[in-house]
């Protein structure tokens, strides 16, 4: 008896509400919370502060893994570094060669379109972000990154790595944001098949190595190896960024077909990602929803204004200045 003294319920009955009553209150509170969170995002502000409160714990929890990466990085052998350096130099040379050609191409493109000046690149500026937490479960494919509203991150912002599209920010806290990956079963990217120009959507499967294209008819002209680019529809991603490559086209007896694609971004091994800001006035930029009041689709993925917060001035960011006239690049 003494062992349970502190917790003996019967001995202390009458002191405090009965369990049935407090259950009723808390359950009601939870249901109200769910309704508010679900409908119209009344809790954006609350979520914002909650994510700020949760961030220290998330940082602490991820620190052993970060420490492990750091030790690995600092214990790399000299030969490894040398080979890596040689590889990077080679890659850099290749990319510079391509970039030279790109400049010529943009000029040529502008001439073909009858524009007097070349358009600046659609990507206005970008910011690297570190991955704090990766959740690749069978239900959710999310990342937590160490940039938030203080860095100018907004909800529904495109996130990429060096190989292709990764996903978009779904919740923005002051110093951190949650990214939904294109492989999340709740995520769909409007894409265009580069070879044929057919528009469709690529939906996540909760497997980081595959997307499916559920909206294509069985007789669609799709071949393994076809490149999928963002189509610019949907209001989040601009046109023409690589997303995935068709891996498999399977026709079955019932005259239906399954199209599987492999994301180009390396969703399995993420340490650093890139947040991209797009130039709104560019023709290839995603169409912005002005008030975020669209009611179609998943409301969690609709574009909505970041919580009001006096933003710190953006740090000077590396810019993609292809074809951009000099002297115009101040914010």
């Amino acid at each position: 008896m003494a062992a349970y003294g502190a917790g003996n319920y019967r001995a202390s009955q009458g002191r405090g509400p009965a369990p049935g009553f407090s259950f009723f209150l808390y359950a009601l509170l939870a249901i109200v919370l769910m309704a508010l969170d679900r409908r119209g995002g009344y809790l954006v502000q609350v979520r914002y502060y909650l994510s700020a409160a949760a961030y220290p714990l998330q940082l602490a929890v991820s620190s052993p893994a970060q420490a492990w990466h750091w030790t690995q990085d600092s214990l790399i052998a000299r030969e490894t570094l040398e080979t890596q350096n040689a590889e990077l130099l080679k890659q850099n040379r290749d990319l510079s060669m391509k970039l030279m050609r790109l400049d010529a191409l943009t000029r040529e493109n502008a001439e073909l379109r009858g524009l007097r000046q070349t358009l600046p690149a659609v990507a206005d500026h970008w910011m690297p972000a570190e991955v704090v937490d990766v959740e690749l479960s069978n239900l959710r494919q999310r990342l937590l990154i160490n940039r938030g509203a203080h860095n100018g991150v907004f909800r529904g912002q495109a996130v990429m790595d060096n190989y292709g599209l990764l996903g978009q920010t779904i919740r923005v806290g002051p110093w951190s944001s949650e990214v939904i990956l294109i492989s999340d079963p709740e995520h769909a990217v409007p894409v265009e098949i580069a070879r044929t120009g057919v528009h469709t959507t690529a939906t996540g499967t909760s497997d980081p190595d595959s997307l499916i294209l559920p909206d294509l008819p069985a007789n669609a002209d799709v071949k393994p190896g076809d490149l999928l680019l963002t189509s610019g529809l949907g209001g989040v991603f601009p046109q023409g960024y690589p997303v995935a490559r068709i891996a498999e086209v399977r026709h079955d007896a019932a005259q239906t077909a399954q199209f599987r694609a492999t994301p180009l971004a390396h969703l399995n091994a993420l340490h650093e990602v890139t947040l991209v800001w797009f130039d709104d006035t560019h023709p290839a930029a995603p169409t912005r929803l002005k008030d975020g009041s669209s009611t179609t689709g998943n409301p969690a993925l609709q574009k909505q204004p970041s919580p009001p917060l006096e933003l710190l001035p953006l740090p000077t960011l590396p810019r993609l200045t292809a074809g951009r006239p000099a002297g115009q690049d101040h914010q």
Partner: protein
Amino acid sequence: MIERIRDSFGRLLLTVVVALVLSVLPLPTWLSAVRPAFLVITVLYWSIAAPRVGGIGLGFFSGLSLDVFRGAVLGEHALALTAITYVVVREHQKIRLKPSFQQALIMLGALVAYEFILFAIDGWTGHPMTSPLRWIHTLTGALIWPVASAVLDRVRGTR
């Protein structure tokens, strides 16, 4: 009495924070599928051992913290955990007297009920992705119950 509650409350907070950390610790995919719901088990333990200290409020706020870290909708885990905490608090005197094996079976039932509420809310709120893997943690949770309750008994300071 008051001091005892305050002392227990400190220990409760400690175990709950440790359980939360274990719940949100990033793990490889295959490991996170079998990871027991540490926080849920801890809350259930305290609901049985000391319902006056934590009680249903503990269930609600623990669930809310899970929502902040992992929830699709705010209030989802809070509702599920509030519900099973209520049942366990109401029946805590019966459960307490059962041998460890039967307690583990009761925990299995509670965890399945918990996961079912989450499953239902996921469906209602339009997150219909389901995978049979989501039920695995109820089994592993029941399996570690004897160990977990022994460890928590130590922390609570009973012989």
